[in-house]
C-alpha cells in the first residue's frame, strides 16, 4: 500500500506549488491527478498574475482593491497575507524560469487589469497560466526523487479514521483500472473548480468539482458557494474565454447601437471595472434589447495596436480565428457573460486547513476566502500559488510531527471497488445517459443560477438538481472495461457536479441580498446589517444540506459603497 507524508490531489498550479513546498520542507510527497499535470485547467488563466512589486505600488493598495472587488465578503486577514506575499512569490517563480514579459530596460513589465488601481499584472503574452504550469512541471520533473507523481489516477474518495482525521484516499489508475488505497498523514485537495456544472462555461471538461464534493462527503463545510463568477468576455456561441488582458490592453465594449455602454455603468473604470459589474452591465444591455441578434455585444480589439496584439494577445487571435471565424485584429468579436469561476469552495483557514483534521485545500476548490463575492482578474493564479505553498508547508509540518497512521484500509478499498462495480452494472432500462443529465444540469444552472437570480428561479433550479441527483444514481454507462474507462469516471464526476450545484443553489437561495456575483432581482441591495457574513453549506445525509454562517474577518477596511 503506497504511503506518503503528504498526498496532494490535483496537479494544477495549487497542487504543484504545494508539492514543491512540502518537498522543500522535508516531507515525502505524492501528487495525483486524473490528467497529466500540464493538462490542468490552470492553463486557461491567460492574462496574468497580480503583485504589488513595483516600488511605487503597495500591497495595501492591492489588498484594498481585492477587498473592494470581493464586495467586502473577502476575509481581510487572508487577503493581507496573499497581497503581502505576492511580490516574493513572483520573484521566486521568475527565478525558477517563468518567462515573464520584460519592459525596455529588461525588468519585469506589467499590464493593466480589471478592478485594479495600478498596473500590477505580470504576464507571459496571453499564456501566463500555461507558462507557470509548464515551468512548475519542469520543477516537478527536477524533484522526481522526492515527489512521486501519479499521473492519470482518478481519486474516488477521501479516507477518514474513526476520530475523523483524513488519512488518505482511494484512487483508480485510469490506465489499467486498478484501485489503490493511499495512506497519508495529510491530504491536500487541489483539484480545481466545478464549472462543468454550467453550460456553457469557460471551464475545461475536467472541472467537475471532484475535490469539493469529496471533501463535502466526509463532512467538510463548503463556503461562499453561491458566488459564481460570470466572465464578461466569452464567445457568444460556445462560451470560450477571451482574456481580460484584451481590455487591459485597451479593447472596448459596444452595444449594437455603437454605444460604449460601460460609460453609464462604471464611468471611471469603464471596461476595467470588476468582473461582476461589467457582466451585469452586459446582461442588462442584452436583456433590454441592445445586444446583437446573436445575443452578444461587441468587443473591439482593433483599437489595440496590431503588433502588440500579435505579441501579447496571440492566443485570442487563434481563438477568434478557430472558434468564431473572426480576425480580432481587423473586426470586433461578439461576446457575452459566461460562467468562469467559483469563488466558493472547501472552507479553509489561511494555512489551507479545512474543518477536517489532516485535510487541506488550496486553489479554486478551496475558499480561504480571498475572493469573497467576486474575484479580481489575475488574482486566481496568485491564490493558487500563495495558498498552495502555504498548504504544502503546513501539511509537511503536520506530517513531520506524527507517525504514519495505521489501521486497515482494505475494507474501505473493497467498499470502493464494490461501488465502482455497481455503477458499471447499472441497467440501461432503468436510467438516463450521463450526458443527458449533465446537459440538463448545465442548462438549468446557467438559466437560474447566473448573473441575475431570484427566489422563484432558484427554487425551481433546486428542484431540478434534486431530481437529477436521483437520476444520477441510476445513470448507466456503456463501458465495462478497465483500461481508460472514461464512461465510468463520467458517471462519478456527474455525482460530484450535482453535489456542488446543490451547494451553490442552496447558498444562493439563502443569501437574500445582492453582493458581488450574487445579484438577486428580488433583493437588489447589498445588506451589510444582515448579510455581511459567509454562508457555509454542509452535507446532511441525502437530505437538503445544512446552512450555517461564519463572520467575515475585518482588519482595516470598513464596508463602503462600491463604485467603479
Amino acid at each position, binding site marked *: 500500500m503506497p504511503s506518503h507524508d503528504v498526498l496532494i490531489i490535483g496537479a494544477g498550479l495549487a497542487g504543484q506549488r504545494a508539492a514543491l513546498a512540502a518537498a522543500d520542507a522535508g516531507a515525502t510527497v505524492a501528487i495525483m491527478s486524473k*490528467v*497529466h499535470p*500540464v*493538462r*490542468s*485547467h490552470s*492553463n*486557461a488563466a491567460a492574462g496574468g498574475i497580480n503583485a504589488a512589486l513595483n516600488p511605487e505600488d503597495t500591497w495595501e493598495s492591492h489588498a484594498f482593491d481585492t477587498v473592494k472587488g470581493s464586495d467586502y465578503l473577502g476575509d481581510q486577514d487572508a487577503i493581507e497575507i496573499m497581497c503581502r506575499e505576492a511580490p516574493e512569490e513572483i*520573484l521566486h517563480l*521568475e*527565478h*525558477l*524560469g517563468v*518567462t*515573464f*514579459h*520584460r*519592459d525596455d*530596460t*529588461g*525588468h*519585469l513589465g506589467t499590464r493593466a487589469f480589471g478592478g485594479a488601481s495600478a498596473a500590477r499584472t505580470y504576464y*507571459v*503574452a496571453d*499564456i501566463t497560466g*500555461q*507558462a507557470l504550469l*509548464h*515551468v512548475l512541471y*519542469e*520543477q516537478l*520533473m*527536477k524533484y522526481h526523487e522526492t515527489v512521486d507523481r501519479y*499521473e492519470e489516477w482518478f481519486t474516488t474518495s477521501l479516507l477518514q479514521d474513526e476520530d475523523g482525521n483524513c488519512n488518505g484516499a482511494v484512487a483508480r489508475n485510469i490506465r489499467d483500472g486498478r484501485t489503490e488505497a493511499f495512506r497519508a498523514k495529510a491530504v491536500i485537495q487541489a483539484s480545481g473548480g466545478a464549472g462543468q456544472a454550467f453550460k456553457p462555461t469557460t471551464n*475545461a*471538461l*475536467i472541472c467537475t468539482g471532484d475535490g469539493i464534493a469529496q471533501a463535502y462527503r466526509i463532512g467538510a463545510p463548503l463556503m461562499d458557494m453561491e458566488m459564481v463568477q460570470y466572465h464578461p468576455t466569452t464567445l457568444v456561441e*460556445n462560451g470560450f*474565454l477571451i482574456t481580460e488582458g484584451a481590455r487591459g490592453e485597451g479593447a472596448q465594449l459596444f452595444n449594437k447601437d455603437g454605444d460604449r455602454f460601460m460609460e453609464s455603468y462604471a464611468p471611471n473604470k469603464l471596461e476595467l471595472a470588476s468582473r461582476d459589474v461589467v457582466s451585469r452591465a452586459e446582461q442588462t444591455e442584452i436583456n433590454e434589447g441592445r445586444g446583437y441578434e446573436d445575443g452578444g455585444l461587441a468587443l473591439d480589439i482593433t483599437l489595440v495596436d*496590431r*503588433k502588440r496584439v500579435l*505579441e501579447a494577445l*496571440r*492566443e485570442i487571435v*487563434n*481563438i477568434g480565428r*478557430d*472558434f468564431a471565424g473572426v480576425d480580432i485584429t481587423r473586426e470586433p468579436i461578439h461576446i457575452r457573460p459566461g460562467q468562469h469561476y467559483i469563488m466558493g469552495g472547501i472552507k479553509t483557514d489561511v494555512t489551507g486547513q479545512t474543518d477536517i483534521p489532516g485535510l487541506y485545500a488550496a486553489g479554486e476548490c478551496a475558499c480561504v476566502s480571498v475572493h469573497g463575492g467576486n474575484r479580481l482578474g489575475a488574482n486566481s493564479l496568485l491564490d493558487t500559488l500563495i495558498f498552495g505553498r502555504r498548504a504544502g508547508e503546513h501539511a509537511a509540518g503536520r506530517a513531520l510531527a506524527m507517525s504514519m497512521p495505521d489501521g486497515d484500509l482494505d475494507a474501505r478499498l473493497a467498499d470502493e471497488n464494490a461501488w465502482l462495480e455497481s455503477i458499471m452494472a447499472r441497467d440501461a432500462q432503468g436510467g438516463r*445517459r*450521463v*450526458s*443527458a443529465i449533465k446537459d440538463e444540469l448545465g442548462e438549468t444552472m446557467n438559466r437560474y443560477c447566473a448573473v441575475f437570480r431570484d427566489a422563484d428561479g432558484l427554487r425551481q433550479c433546486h428542484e431540478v438538481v434534486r431530481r437529477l441527483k436521483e437520476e444520477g444514481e441510476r445513470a448507466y454507462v*456503456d*463501458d465495462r*472495461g*478497465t*483500461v*481508460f*474507462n*472514461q464512461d465510468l469516471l463520467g458517471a462519478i464526476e456527474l455525482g460530484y457536479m450535482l453535489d456542488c450545484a446543490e451547494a451553490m443553489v442552496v447558498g444562493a437561495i439563502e443569501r437574500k441580498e445582492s453582493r458581488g456575483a450574487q445579484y438577486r432581482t428580488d433583493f437588489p441591495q447589498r445588506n451589510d446589517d444582515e448579510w455581511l457574513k459567509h454562508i457555509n453549506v454542509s452535507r446532511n445525509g441525502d437530505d437538503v444540506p445544512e446552512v450555517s454562517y461564519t463572520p467575515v474577518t475585518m482588519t482595516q477596511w470598513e464596508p463602503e459603497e462600491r463604485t467603479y
Partner: protein
Amino acid sequence: MPAYTLKIRRYLPESGDAPHWQDFEVELDGHRSVLEGILKVKGEQDGSVGIRCSCRAAICGSCAVRINGKPMLACNTHLEHAAERSADDGAIVVEPMGNMPVIKDLIVDMDAVHWKKIERVTPWLLPEGDPPEREYVVPHENMVDITQSMACIQCGACVSDCLSMEVDPLFIGPAALAKAYRFVGDPRDGQHYERLKDLAEDPHGIYDCTHCFNCIDACPKGVAPMSQIMRLRRIAGSDHGIDDRNNGHRHVMAFVENIERNGLLHEADLLPDSYGGKFHPRAVPELVDSLPVVVRGLMRRKVTPRKALLHPHRKDYKGLRRLFEKVEGREERVELNLYISGHEDDPAEAEKEAQP
C-alpha cells in the same frame, strides 16, 4: 443540420479484437469541432470510445489525433474542413497519433515516448550561482523569443509525424528539442554550452533531424520545432564552435559553402566536403563506406556519371550571390519568430516587410 461520418480507429485492449475501423454518424454544424463530434458519439452512442480531452480550446494539448492522416488537435479542427479534406468518400478518418504505442482507441502512451524524450533534455532552468535579490534583468526580445517555445502545449503532434523518429526511435525529437531551445535561448540559464555540447554530440541529437518540415506543419501552436532545432545547431556550431563527433556542424558548413561555390548543390562534392575535402584522411573511409550507395544510385539511374561529375552551374548566379551577401552582411543573425515577426501568412505584413 449536416451529418458527418466519423471513421474512428478502435482498439479495445481487453476485447481480444484486433484494431478496426468503426463508423459513427453525427449531426452537427460544420464549424463545430471534430472533438465535439467525438464527444457527441461518446455521449449519445457509445461511451466506450476513448479520447483524451479537456479544455476544448487548443490550450491543454490533450486531444491530438490523426485526422485524415495528419496530426492535429481534434478541438480546433472544424468538421466541415475535415470532411472536405477526406480521402475516404467524405468520411472523417480519425486515428491515434503515430510514433507512440496505442493504449486504447485514440489514446497513446505519451509517457513511453514523448515525456521520456522531454526528460532527456534536462528540462529545468540551471542558473549559475544564487538568484539576484529581485528579478534577473534580461532583454525583452529574449523573453519574447523563447515564448515561442513556451507556447508548446506538449500535445505530441510533432512527435507523431516526425520522419526521423520513425527511422530512429531514439531521436530526441522535435518537441524535446524545442524545449531544449527554451533553455538555450534563456539568458538566465547558466549551462548553454553544456546543453548544446550534449545535444550536438548525441548521435540522436540535433543533427539527427532531416529537415522534413513535418513538425512545423503539425504544430497547432506555431512553435516551429524544426526552426528551434536549426537555431540550436547555429548556436552550437557558429557561436560555441562545437565541432561534434557526428560531423554535423562540418556538414552544415560544407552544405552552405557548396551552394555558394556552385550555385546549386553539387551532391558528389557534398560528402567529401563535409569531411574536409576528397583527400582528407577523415573523408577516405567515409567515401569508401558510401561506395555501395553510389553504385546502387548509378545502377538505378538515379544519377549519371556525367551529371555527378560535371555539375551544371546555376545561371542566375548573381541573384544567389546577392542572397548570400544580404544574409551574411547583417550584423546580427536574423531569427524568424512568430511573436516578433507577426503572422506567418499575412500578405499585408509580408508586403510591408518587402519594402526597403
